């Protein structure tokens, strides 16, 4: 399958040397994207967490142990495994910025895309959303409320992209040439340490493309060839090595 080349490629760089695993990004994502509150969020196979946080370990015993936290949104892969298998084209990789869209009314809930995604970034609505009385008034107008039976995932808050374009239009500016901080997803905006950075990977002046080019940047499961648009950054080699599967004594750098 060929990768598309887009004029703008929205991407994220998450600095794992700044992530404390606090969970603010995950909470803000729920609030922004109208995920329902879940009373029993223990069974992770039945809950939805568009921005999920994993605890990483270097696997060594005390006192050599080290810990890190990894927030995982949808990778918005350059070569998505999910959109190619959707039987009804409810999800496609869009030419405007390379975001993998998810269209809820078209989804038939076959979950083929969930099986295909190697990052477990897609979630199925097993149940209708239950909002405690009155709490539905806190729904934002940006994302529709999904009924049971459809798959959903992180969308890089593309509604904020649309809002940024509207703002540019009323200011008389070019909506296709947005300044770097005009469009920023909820998680990146809210992260207290600023670990999550967002921007145009194709624009050499954007911070994300500079960091993504660094030797300390890596992507998850890069060897699968999904070409993710979410990069991670860490000065710690053990963290970078956790991004993919390596043979114990592999020689050479598998830097993608």
């Amino acid at each position: 399958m060929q990768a598309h080349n887009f004029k703008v490629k929205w991407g994220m760089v998450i600095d794992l040397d700044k992530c404390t695993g606090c969970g603010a990004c995950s909470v803000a994502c729920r609030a922004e994207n109208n995920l329902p509150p879940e009373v029993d969020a223990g069974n992770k196979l039945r809950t939805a967490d568009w921005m999920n946080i994993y605890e990483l370990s270097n696997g060594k015993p005390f006192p050599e142990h080290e810990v890190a936290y990894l927030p995982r949104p949808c990778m918005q892969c350059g070569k998505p495994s999910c959109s190619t298998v959707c039987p009804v084209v409810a999800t496609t990789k869009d030419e405007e910025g390379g975001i993998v869209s998810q269209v809820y009314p078209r989804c038939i809930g076959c979950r083929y895309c969930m099986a295909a995604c190697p990052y477990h970034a897609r979630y199925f609505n097993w149940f209708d959303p239950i909002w405690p009385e009155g709490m539905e008034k806190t729904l934002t107008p940006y994302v529709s409320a999904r009924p049971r039976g459809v798959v959903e995932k992180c969308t890089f808050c593309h509604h904020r992209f649309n809002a940024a374009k509207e703002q540019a239009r009323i200011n008389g500016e070019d909506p296709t040439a947005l300044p770097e901080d005009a469009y920023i997803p909820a998680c990146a905006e809210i992260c207290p340490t600023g670990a999550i950075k967002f921007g145009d990977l194709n624009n050499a002046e954007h911070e994300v493309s500079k960091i993504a080019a660094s030797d300390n940047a890596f992507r998850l499961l890069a060897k699968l060839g999904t070409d993710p648009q979410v990069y991670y950054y860490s000065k710690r080699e053990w963290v970078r090595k956790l991004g993919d599967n390596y043979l114990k004594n592999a020689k050479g750098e598998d830097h993608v």
Partner: protein
Amino acid sequence: MGLDRRSFISLVAGGVVGSLCTPVIWKTLDDVSIWSQNWPWIPRLNYGEEKKLATLCKLGGDAYGIKVKTVAGNPVTAEGNPDHPLSLGGICPLGAASVQMLYSPARIKNPKIKDGNNFKDISWDDAEALLAEKLKEAGAATAMISGDETGSTAEILSGLVGKLGSQKSFFMPAESAPAAAAVQMLGGDGQVGYDLENAGYVLLLGADALGSWANVARNAKAFAASRDKAVRYVYVGPAQNGTTAVADAWIPCAAGTEPLLALGLAHIIASGRTSYAPGFADFERYVQAYQPETVAAATGVPAERIMNLAKELINAGRPLVLTASESGHGLGAYEAAAGMCLNMLLGQMNAPGGVRILPWAPKVVESAAEKKDLLANDLVAYLTAVADGQEDAPKVLLVHSANPAYALPNLNKVQSALDKAEFLVSFSTFMDETAVMADLILPDSYALERLDDSYSPYGAPQAIYTVAAPVTKPIYDTRAAGDVLLSVAAKADAELGFESFEAVISAKAEALEAEIDSLMEGTPWVSEEFPTQDLAFWSSPLKEIAVPAGAEKSVSLSVVTHLKIGSAAIATPPFGTNAIRFDEMKGKEMYVQLNAATASSLGVKKDDRIKLANAAGECVALVKIFEGVMSGTVVASLGFGHTAWDDFSRGKGDNIYKLLQAEAEPGTGVSRFGSAQVTISKA
């Protein structure tokens, strides 16, 4: 001509062919599919004008400015406030979940009076009249507990209690009290803050600065900014956490012994220098006892590491030592002083990048106690004494912005003392464990529904006064506690001199010479003035800091706070449940962390159900093997084990407060409960 079968079939066939040429079938299918996507129970979105309003978040231990986005007047999301010095655009997970709490199922919707084991609704007029009557009867046998250290409502509450002739006003235990006591020991007078932004080397002795300590959002911003400069963050504590995940180094140190390490460092640093600060000679003599080897034995930090750490501090430009209890409360005054002395030795008291001593907030309610006196009152000691019969139970006990029935050590005694109080009044917004025990509930409006204010929370680097206008009208029949208290005070013949809470805020602004209109619009008042201090090394009789004693077969319990799980006043918010990972909770049981060596010595393994027990109580949890914990230590998170609130938090995990025993610190009487010892057995 009759219609025979052939004609009939032909008619029908014509009908079918005709229908295919009409939109009937296609449109019906299309409309039915749309109908199936519009079930009436799926909520519809509301559209309208968007606004971002500045407000205050006090759900955790901090009080900082955030912004709430409203659509057509309804609050929808919360985010940081780039213009507030304690947010700088950042927000913590509790703040991010704060809007949805407005509609939490645990909210109390109107005043309630105890009726047997349940509650009966009561009108505001009746409730206020009843409380006023009880207060008149009780007179000086009134007491108050508040969890809001920075707001004027607590001042009104303290004023009411003071007017009735009682000195029994208490804050819930937090970081400010031991820090203020420590500064007092050094001859200082004022609130404690830290100029983290300008520090060159930050030594966190137990202080989980990026997780739950003091001003979490602002700490995170300061930390992020430090990454571009050669600033070092070193965390000292028994276990790895979010702060160590990003800090430059983790120094494993036995739970609760971080202040001993401070004294060990002070010993090394003091030996190297001469200081003309008053009391230095006494201090140097005092720290002689804390030789590296002695400290190494007590803390588990190798002597060489202690010496290197001391060198790093000496060589650092602008070192800053932040001493705290791992969970955010329970530190003793001497323990806080040990860390403060280190700052003084390093010349970083009231200096850029160091400790800042801020002026106390001006008091506007005359009969209120001074804040420093309030901080000096030890709530745990008082409630324990009441439970033990050593002190008279209060006739009226007013509880505001606090949940003592859940979030205090010596929990059995605390609950017994609350029970003994003749008339327990709760102003809680939510049906928490204390409200469940209350005789009368006068529900405070939620933060977004009322006017609120805050003067410099603990850790703020300068005096900051923030006023937050309401974001929305109260959705239930609740009223702002400040206004209710003023009204009740008037009815109880204890008139406090203010018509409304707004009047109190105006008075406070005037006293600070701050512009009230600008404050109401969301611009905080900030001052760069720091009162001059006459500091001396601690001159009160120097006592030895107790080393936590381990009983046989017991392990150290390190207690931590995760804001996404909740705080001392707030249970897991509806939007917080998902942020709790699968390795933190399984089903309805919580995990505690031990390393493999500790687990095998106790004969337990991963996912085993264990009982942690000591003289104070017992808890049940599951074992998580985590190598980021010192041996002989178990790490447990506060915030679980709620028995009230709502389904989002009730019945999940166990309340670790049950395992905390408070001991009065010899010499100061401050309750110490930062860590504990527990025995572990299979449950």
